[in-house]
């Protein structure tokens, strides 16, 4: 069924009794041309672009739990392309362009809202760093505006501009940034992939990767063996564990990142604000809850939950930036598993095993990258070589020294 104003009206007249399930419950077939391991945003997007751009439709997406049960439904929904380094900017800008046409592409309302992303700076040195970043973005054709304090005040007057320790000096604004309804991204890609014949198989954990003569031949799963021409791994959070099934050791640690939502309030924040003096970012969902987050807890974790010291730290940052938040109650907090890579940048590449491809290491920036990640990973799988956009995201860059270290923090995953 194609969604449109007419389908909504027709359903309204039928009392909404005619809506169909959004995708089929596919049974696992014995063999596929391509199998994607991981039914999150990136895996589903990869399957969709393989079908749409490369004409490959004999595809399965295997998911251990249910579709979109991982980080695509756990993030703070922010999209932006305000990066500094040459390997990153064109990739994230492609992602932004794909976000802008996503809903028409998928025929699905993902509530893409370009409400702007405002990064605050608090010192002269930080202003210089942001001016440099903004210039790098504009040289790559990405929109960026450097704002002085009064220009920031006109947008978000309720911040603590006179904070004694971290007074707000201005901001770097990317107006095309914003937020997206994150679950709808997974559902939209799933539906669009399903319509092109992709089998979406849930509750199907992969337990082994079979390799013969240096080439992947198939996967052992809890639903039995399935033969595969090519296999793409897109299981961030658990990338190390899945890659280990093929004997690969990755430059990745799994860490836990917490996110938070307050009780719902009337419209308050009409953009995305990031604090420049601490790791803190906040926006408001369409339901009214303030959605915010901070840094990773900082130690290896597969526990899907964090600890209280980081909750306190994030709330302190919130109070330093926006003291009125102290009157709000925290409604929920939750944790997700991050593939923290050794240079803070992702990997979309072939592996030393023929026919096995890797999409991993998203740190906590994976959501905004979803469309471009799927697009580039599909290209890499279909053509057996990376596209220019993901040419820098190589698996062997750690051996060759071509790191993409946006923060300059070195090989210390918990500092990225």
């Amino acid at each position: 069924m194609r969604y449109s104003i007419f389908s909504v009206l027709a359903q309204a007249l039928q009392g909404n009794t005619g809506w169909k399930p959004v995708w089929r419950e596919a049974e696992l077939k014995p063999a596929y041309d391509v199998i994607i391991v991981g039914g999150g945003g990136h895996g589903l997007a990869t399957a969709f672009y393989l079908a749409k751009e490369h004409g490959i439709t004999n595809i399965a997406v295997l998911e251990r739990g249910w579709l979109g049960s991982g980080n695509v439904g756990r993030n703070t929904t922010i999209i932006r392309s305000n990066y500094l380094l040459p390997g990153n900017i064109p990739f994230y800008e492609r992602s932004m362009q794909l976000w802008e046409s996503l809903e028409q592409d998928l025929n699905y309302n993902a509530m893409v809202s370009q409400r702007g992303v405002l990064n605050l700076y608090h010192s002269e040195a930080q202003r210089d760093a942001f001016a440099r970043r903004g210039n790098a973005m504009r040289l790559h054709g990405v929109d960026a505006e450097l704002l002085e304090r009064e220009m920031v005040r006109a947008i978000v007057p309720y911040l603590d501009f006179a904070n004694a320790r971290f007074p707000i000096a201005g901001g770097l604004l990317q107006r095309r940034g914003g937020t997206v309804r994150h679950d709808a991204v997974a559902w939209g890609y799933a539906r669009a992939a399903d319509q092109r014949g992709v089998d979406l198989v849930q509750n199907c954990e992969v337990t082994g990767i079979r390799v013969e003569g240096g080439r992947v031949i198939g996967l052992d799963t809890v639903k039995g063996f399935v033969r595969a021409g090519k296999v793409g791994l897109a299981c961030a959070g658990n990338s190390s564990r899945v890659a280990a099934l093929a004997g690969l050791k990755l430059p990745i640690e799994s860490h836990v990142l917490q996110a938070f939502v307050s009780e719902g309030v009337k419209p308050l924040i009409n953009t995305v604000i990031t604090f420049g003096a601490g790791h803190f970012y906040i926006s408001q969902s369409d339901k009214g809850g303030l959605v915010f987050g901070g840094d990773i807890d900082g130690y290896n974790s597969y526990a899907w939950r964090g600890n209280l010291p980081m909750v306190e730290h994030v709330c302190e940052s919130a109070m330093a930036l926006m003291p009125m938040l102290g009157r709000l109650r925290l409604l929920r907090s939750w944790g997700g598993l991050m593939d923290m890579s050794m240079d803070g940048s992702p990997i979309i590449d072939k592996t030393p095993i023929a026919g096995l491809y890797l999409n991993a290491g998203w740190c906590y920036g994976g959501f905004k990258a979803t469309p471009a990640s799927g697009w580039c990973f599909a290209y890499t799988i279909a053509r057996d070589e990376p596209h220019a956009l993901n040419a820098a995201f190589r698996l062997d860059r750690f051996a060759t020294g071509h790191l993409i270290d946006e923060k300059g923090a070195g090989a210390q995953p918990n500092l990225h």
Partner: protein
Amino acid sequence: MRIDCCYCGPRGHEEFAYLGDATVARPNGDPKRPLDDAEWQRWIDYVYLRDNPAGPHRELWQHVAGCRAWLVVTRDVRTHAILNVEPARQVALARAR
């Protein structure tokens, strides 16, 4: 998470700084000699590659807001349960033996 420091007793983990996997070993070698391929690979392993297990994980923590000692903590990363704490010096000496 509370870490039972060998010198200070149980303290909240916010008193400690985390370094990471304690099982990686810095390669030995003569710094004046160029690296051969195997040694090069050992350095890449040491600096960048991690087992990243889902289960008991031996890791280095420093009690920065206490005695400043380095500790090797064995922690189940699926549950955050701390299974064992040893002084890092003792672990290093045992490994050197």
